[in-house]
């Protein structure tokens, strides 16, 4: 049986590792290479690393750092942030990445996603989709590079991205980011029933029960940031990851 994946999602900002709340206030939590080394030792299922300032600053990926990160991973590694051309994607795959996550470039034009899928296979492209509630409580597609919502619906964008070649969808609930108070289960339910490819749910994990709820709602994988880097009510930085048996027991009945 295929297992549900539990994925630490790490954010890069100015060369350091940070954690945000609702996509704002990045707080420094440590050195990325050191963190990845620890996650590798803990035998995590997979890792996602997102450079949250690359697209905003219209900057290329930090290839040197990414190569060092890939060198520490004996598990699949996905990188996102600032990728705009097929040449950049080729360079990144050459450094030892398995997957590339696209958001800003895909929101403008889906052809890059198609080009990467054609050359490297759709399993190597993840559509990164951020969704934020508006003042009426409606889920809106969010552009993380500009901090604005889009007029296109999030469902429509996911549909188009999958048709264009995305092999996976990473869906992040902006309002839940970093709060550790539970995931947006309704959002996950609606997305998973409409997405034919694996869905990675992100945003809000604070405890193991949240992960179980997301899997129950249909997520193929659950990613989290704060849950893996903070410990205790005062959010002390400590990298943790549940052990294998603990996760097995947790998710056994949900399968």
């Amino acid at each position, binding site marked *: 049986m295929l297992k549900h994946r539990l994925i630490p999602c790490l954010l890069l900002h100015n060369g350091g590792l940070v954690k945000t709340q609702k996509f704002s206030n990045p707080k420094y939590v440590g050195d990325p290479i050191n963190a990845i080394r620890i996650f590798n030792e803990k035998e995590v299922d*997979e890792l996602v690393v997102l450079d949250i300032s690359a697209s905003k600053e219209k900057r290329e990926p930090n290839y040197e750092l990414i190569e060092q990160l890939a060198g520490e991973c004996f598990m699949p590694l996905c990188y996102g942030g600032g990728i705009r051309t097929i040449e950049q994607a080729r360079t990144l795959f050459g450094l*030892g990445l398995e997957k590339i996550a696209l958001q800003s470039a895909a929101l403008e034009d889906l052809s890059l996603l198609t080009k990467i899928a054609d050359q490297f296979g759709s399993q190597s492209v993840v559509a990164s989709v951020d969704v934020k509630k508006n003042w009426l409580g409606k889920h809106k597609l969010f552009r993380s590079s500009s901090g604005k919502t889009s007029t296109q619906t999030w469902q429509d964008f996911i549909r188009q991205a999958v048709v264009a070649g995305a*092999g996976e969808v990473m869906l992040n609930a902006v309002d839940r980011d970093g709060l550790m108070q539970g995931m947006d289960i309704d959002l996950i339910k609606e997305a998973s029933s409409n997405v034919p490819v694996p869905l990675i749910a992100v945003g809000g994990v604070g405890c193991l029960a949240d992960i179980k709820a997301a899997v129950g709602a249909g997520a193929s994988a659950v990613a989290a940031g704060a849950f893996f880097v903070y410990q205790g009510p005062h959010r002390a930085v400590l990298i943790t990851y549940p052990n294998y048996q603990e996760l097995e027991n947790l998710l056994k009945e949900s399968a």
Partner: protein
Amino acid sequence: MLIPNYGCGNLASIVRMINWVGGDAVITSKASDLAVADKIILAGVGAFDHGMSGLCDGGWIDALNEAVLVRRVPILGICLGMQLMCKTSEEGTLPGLGWIDAEVGRFKLEQDSSLKIPHMGWNTVSVTKENPIICSDQEEQRFYFVHSYHVICNQPNDTLAIAHHGYDFTAAFSHENIFGVQFHPEKSHKFGMALMKNFVEL
């Protein structure tokens, strides 16, 4: 140990793991180098025809046949590399290397199945025959998979391990000096490390 670079995918992480477990792997872009290889890893991701035309354009096919079928060098196919060792694939029209009596077919899941394609993530495998690369006495072996097509062996005894996604399928095969795994040992932590170490020490 040589790893042909025929334009299909991520070879850096394979080199890294082979070296980590004490082997000495080198990526080569010259088919003639295979004449001195004492082991080969045929890696790759992507479409079947893209892989076969990459092998063909680089002049790899004769060099591989010579090393594998004549000199009988141990070879490990990973993911697409495993599939290329078969006769044909539903994914493409070009013939495969044809070393293993097997075809490659797409996952055929029930219409109402909640299972997704690609089969992506960690899955357990069950070893079905004595073999030198995957240990069968440990309680559970799990590996990282990413694929939409899988190998269908015509000779049941070629299957080395199976995994389950909707139904049982061949996750690894072996035939004399030829080994193939559908999953990614280079991305499968200690389980992949053990497999790679076994292959290095063959």
